């Protein structure tokens, strides 16, 4: 096997694994969009706060799994909070204020994190072994593997819960038709709150598994939000596992194009593909076709 090919494979694998992180954050967008047709543009800040919460808990000498669960609880509370403060009223008034309000809540979160945890990027401790694994000459680190496993795991869990628990079915009913669901006695407001809480929880979880790779800092998720948003929209805002494919594809494309075209251009081909994909399939690659009804 020639070195050029091996290098490309290495890039693709690394990018794909990072792409799963995009997909996991994108999943948070999808959860809230399904239930309430709004997304949290401060999702990245929830990722960051989740990571910081996890960091604080593990510096308090709690075991890794406890701090991750704690961070997820904090994330769920924050997700609920964002929905309550920034989204609910704007959606009732049918204006797009929520876009800005979620951004504003995110701005405040960054400022608060700067003051509470400091402006420094900090390493995130993990129980994983140091060093890298090698598969066919491609090296992969343990935290990268954890991202892949974590993303798959949490998405599977939430999807199962959506299908097989009453609350999950209620959320699905609200996503399908809010008015009809209310007529069936489902409290759509609670269902929307629940989906925001779960979205916040998945964001915080994403924070704890991404942080060992990216470090924890107030601005750690700034670029992640935009990438995740791209993945969510390109995959289609109603396809869960389409996200994973789109995320892996975007991550790998970025890395390979950075390698071939020079690192300054690494994002460009992905962006061009993205615009083309949207122009050809506005509903997203895996989204259902929208039929205009009048």
């Amino acid at each position, binding site marked *: 096997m020639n070195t050029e090919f091996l290098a490309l494979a290495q890039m693709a694998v690394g990018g794909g694994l990072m792409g799963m992180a995009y997909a996991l954050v994108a999943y948070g967008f999808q959860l809230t969009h399904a239930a309430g047709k709004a997304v949290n543009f401060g999702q990245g800040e929830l990722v960051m706060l989740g990571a910081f919460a996890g960091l604080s808990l593990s510096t308090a000498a709690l075991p890794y799994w406890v701090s991750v669960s704690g961070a997820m609880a904090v994330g769920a509370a924050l997700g609920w909070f964002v929905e309550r403060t920034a989204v609910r009223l704007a959606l009732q008034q049918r204006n797009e204020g929520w876009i800005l309000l979620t951004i504003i809540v995110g701005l405040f979160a960054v400022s608060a994190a700067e003051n509470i945890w400091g402006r420094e990027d900090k390493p995130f401790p993990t129980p994983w072994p140091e060093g890298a694994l090698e598969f066919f000459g491609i090296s992969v680190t343990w935290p990268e593997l954890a991202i892949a496993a974590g993303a798959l795991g949490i998405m599977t869990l939430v999807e199962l819960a959506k299908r097989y628990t009453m609350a999950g079915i209620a959320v699905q009913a609200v996503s399908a038709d809010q008015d009809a669901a209310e007529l069936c006695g489902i409290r759509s407001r609670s269902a929307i709150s629940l989906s925001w809480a779960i979205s916040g929880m998945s964001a915080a979880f994403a924070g704890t598994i991404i942080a060992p790779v990216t470090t924890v800092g107030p601005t750690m998720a700034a670029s992640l939000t935009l990438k995740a948003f791209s993945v969510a929209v390109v995959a289609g805002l109603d396809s869960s596992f389409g996200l994973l494919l789109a995320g892996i594809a975007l991550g790998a494309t970025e890395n390979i194009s950075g390698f071939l075209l020079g690192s300054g251009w690494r994002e460009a081909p992905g962006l061009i593909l993205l615009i083309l994909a949207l122009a050809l399939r*506005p509903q997203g690659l895996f989204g259902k076709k929208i039929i205009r009804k009048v």
Partner: protein
Amino acid sequence: MFAGVSLGMRERTAERIVRITVFVGLAALPALWQGQYALGLLTLMAVYGVLLIGLDTTVGYLGQVNLAQAALFALGAYGTALTVQAGATLPLALLAGIAAALVPGAALALPALRLEGPQFALSTLSFATLTIIVLNELESVTNGALGLSIVRPPLFMLRLNATSFYWLCLVALFVAWESSQILLKSRFGLAIEALRDSPTATDALGIGTLRHKVLAFAWGSALAGLAGGLHAMNFGYLQPAAFGYDLMVMLLLGVVFGGRRSQWGAFLGAAIVAMLPNLLSNHLLFSVLVSLGCILSFIPLIRAAISRRVPFFRETAPAAAMAIAAILAFFVPNMEEWRKGIFALFLFAVVVGFPNGIAGAMATRLYQLIRFAPLPLPPATGGVPSSRRSSGVALRLSDLCKSFGGVKAVEGVTLEIRQGETLGLIGPNGSGKTTLVNLISGLYAPDSGSVEIAGTQPARGSLMSACSAGSARTFQNLQPFYGLTALESIMICQQKREKSEAMGWLAAVGLEEKARIRCSEMSYGDLRFLEIARALATRPRLLMLDEPAAGMSKPDIFRLVDLIASIKQAKVPILLIEHHQDVVAELCDRVAVMDGGRLIALGTPHEIRRDPKVIEAYLGSDNTETFEQEAIPC
């Protein structure tokens, strides 16, 4: 309640007078408020004003979240800077800046045309990121991250110092403002607003979405380019990184903050985003603003307490945010560190407290206090004139089929409407009536079969083409242009822009009294009549009415029957979908009945009433008695 002072002039005149006063005041300000800093802030405000008026065209009027404005601003700035380096004069350089933003901006509108909502936002965001990458990487042209330094060129031999450059920016702002106002109040601008409320209706009425979207985007981009050019000359140094996501968020905040769909809103927003973050770095001013904001936000709470009711969220949330801001500002030792957080709380309080922005809130107040002289209206002319002349049959459908997934919504429908004929189309819910109308009007492309309207075959699945062939329709679920008045709604549907003719159409449907009322404030029944007037204003060769009487009160139904009768009198062929059987019986020459996507009967109302297949379709078999009772409207 206080009725308000009557001002003996029109709103537009009053607005102009106020605006000119403000501009004169702004121009005179450097004489009073001295110093480079003041000038710097005012210049920045003027530049951002131009930029935000442009952004408001897409965000406010077109109603789409446009995240490319900062990048277009950058393109304008680089276009100007590079031409200045090449030795261009100031006006030429500004033109180059406008072109540098206009061309890519209009090009971006093309792929973004089919997109709405998050998809539109993402395509503009991708464009913005791409632009910054290109500016960063083309080092030989843009000098990349090292940045581009330029010296401000003279304006026709006149060296511009800070003050005269500020005046130049004010002039640019005034021109941008005035021309945006003229453009957006023109037929083209009204069409942009109509498009925001219902792109389906604009297409179906032949107004068109494509060119208006491109125009709105192009206009916004041109202003971004102009603002970029001024920005480049103002600071004299450009770096791609300065035009990133942060700036974009700031600009969006400005537009929402100030108030959408208003040049005043854009201007106020610009003043806020240009000045506030900088002014807030002054400790004293910061404390004053925080205290003022805190007091203001508590007033509604106190009012609620006095009238003994639980305050609304939109009252408590700003107060809570400002209270936290005040605590951070006065009781935390390192207030400077929290400055950004306090700023965010400020923004939160304003966006929640004034969902329509500051300009929106001020306008509401103003309309309570002042009554302006109303716009004069010309007398109505016309009435329901005869349809455009055409030969052959009005509509010919042959073997039309359409299915969604496995569901055959329309299956093998063959049908003709003759000139001057009114054909009723009835059938149980879900029988495919509306789908048939959607196929004829071009909203859906048929799977097979053909549509011929007044002798021409429109392009498959094109609303515009069906409309230009002569079809016009109303919608079962109303598609009004909420942002427009009744009169404006009619005017944009007409071929010629004659107000008196538009008044004629309104008179025909009995709405001439309500010409100046916004659709968002009209009643359901009125909107139904307005939709018919809209359709008539296109002078159709085939008028399709999709359940016009649905949800109407009884007197309104009588009015409707009279109206349709008069349209029929004028020999306009009509396809009428209706559940009220007496309406159908009274108006229709023939009636077609659909069930399960198929045409099951066709004949005079009398024949249909006796047709056993029809009775079965409606009521199941052997229940002939109740049918006629059911058919009577309740």
